[in-house]
């Protein structure tokens, strides 16, 4: 009796945790199920399982939501941002972690201030600058912005990774006469790829989801990525819930698949990102 008391029942834990889990899952489940319904069925069966699974919603959403175009745009923007950010951050992190850089503290402070500045302070001047540089309504323009926004965090994350690498490999290469660049290329990169994967996931997710800069800097329908493309789709077809739900599912499907496959890395990267930015 005494023991049972001290052990404490964990049944209430499971009950409350399940309720919380349902609060997270049921809305997502409704989105999935309603992406297979026609507008007529939504009227009579707004929250249940579809009577007939209308897979053609997806084909139609693909067509009217112009998913061929917006998915391509998103892939260009996300891919460009990942490559750009990892290049910038990889070089920077290497210098900060491995080369004795004078003024490294100052640099850390610079990034602290740089990431702390709210977008609202600079988005309007940046818009005007991009207009004058003819970078408005170009994918390159948005990619440069995303690289600027995400590179401090990626540098921070990669630096932590590089510091944890054993010094001996680098020393050995140096004795063989390797240059800074060769050390980076042949020693550091092959050893630190997990850090790069984590950084790529975080950077990729945030540029895939980003809304404020995408809606401000890309107005042409042909150039929009999936976030603002879906927004435009929602606004125009606000009553075709089946279609817009299918459109939303197309956007989250790759995220969910990647997350389930690489959840440790995702959670690790995103929690560090949240704590830093």
């Amino acid at each position: 009796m005494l023991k049972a008391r001290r052990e404490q029942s964990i049944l209430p834990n499971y009950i409350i945790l399940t309720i919380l889990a349902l609060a997270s899952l049921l809305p997502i489940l409704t989105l999935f199920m309603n992406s297979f319904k026609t507008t007529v069925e939504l009227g009579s069966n707004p929250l249940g399982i579809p009577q007939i699974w209308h897979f053609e919603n997806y084909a139609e959403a693909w067509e009217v939501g112009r998913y061929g175009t917006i998915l391509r745009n998103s892939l260009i923007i996300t891919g460009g941002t990942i490559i750009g950010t990892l290049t910038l951050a990889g070089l920077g992190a290497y210098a900060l972690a491995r080369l004795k850089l004078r003024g490294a503290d100052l640099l850390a402070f610079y990034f602290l201030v740089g990431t702390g500045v709210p977008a609202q302070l600079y988005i309007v001047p940046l818009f005007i600058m991009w207009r004058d540089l003819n970078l408005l309504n170009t994918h390159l323009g948005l990619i440069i912005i995303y690289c600027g926004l995400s590179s401090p965090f990626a540098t921070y994350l990669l630096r932590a990774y590089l510091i944890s690498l054993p010094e001996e490999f680098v020393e050995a290469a140096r004795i063989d006469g390797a240059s800074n660049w060769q050390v980076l290329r042949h020693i550091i990169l092959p050893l630190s790829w997990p850090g790069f994967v984590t950084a790529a996931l975080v950077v990729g997710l945030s540029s895939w989801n980003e809304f404020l800069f995408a809606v401000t800097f890309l107005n042409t329908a042909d150039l929009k990525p999936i976030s603002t493309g879906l927004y435009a789709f929602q606004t125009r077809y606000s009553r075709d819930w089946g279609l817009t739900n299918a459109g939303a599912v197309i956007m989250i499907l790759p995220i969910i698949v990647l997350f389930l496959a690489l959840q440790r890395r995702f959670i690790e990267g995103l929690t560090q990102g949240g704590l830093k930015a």
Partner: protein
Amino acid sequence: MTDYTRATPMSQPVPLGQWMMLHIIRPLGRWAFVLPLLIVNAVVIIIPSVSGILYAFTDWNGIGDANWVGLANFQKLFQDPIFFQAFTNNVIYTSLFLIIPIFMGLLGAYLLAGITHGQVIFRLIYFIPYMFSSVINTQIWRYLLHPRYGIGAELAKYGITFLDFPIFGRRDTALYGIVFVDGWHWWGFLVVLYLAAMTQVDKELYEVARLDGATRFQQFRFVTLPSIRPTLIFTMLIIFIGTTLVFDHVYILTGGGPAHASEVMATYLYTQAFQNFDVGYAASIGVMLALWVSVPLSIFYILRRRGWEI
């Protein structure tokens, strides 16, 4: 290969080429790795931020000439009832976020810390909505809170009629609806952070508390909470910053309406800049936002530097 790193005795004159290599070319070579990063960051963030501060003192409309108007924009701002409304809404947004998601995050994490079977799967489920973009959350909840299709309509069939009205279309509910949607997608992130902090807590502390006859709540209050205080304070800081700058959910769900009832500073700034083309005025809102965000940030960093464990 010459070893340039070997110190040259002071008494001997150092060859210029060797001196340059040691003090200029080498350090510059190292900085070359950081330079691209610095340039992109300066172009995207630092330079426009400085311009933003300067614009705040002008009447610029985005094209043509700008006139220096001193503090006129700020005087206007302090007398602008819509800005005051937006600021108040931000304060409400922040306060609600500091209470509800933190409560749910602590609850979820504390319960998760007490179980072993299924911990990973629950954590995974709570985390999924955090990864959704604002356009997804709004798509989900605009439907579920729709007066004809959503939860409210379903409840109304059973005579429960408190939810079957357009939440985002009414002045007194629009803001709270937005906070709910944003909070739904965000609180799971806190679970993960708090759980990580809670697993670091020394198990023996709980053992001692239990032997002293502490209830579960007392264990939480006197063991867990003090132990995770740094994480707790840090999340409060992120929440303050995030909710002060909130834009997406408001812009998509209500656009700040109806009649500015859910206006926040970021959406008001956006309207001033991109619809009214009052770049100077928008910049002054941006400066106010930056100042407001910097208050808790500075307090936090000063206290940390003084060695406070927060």
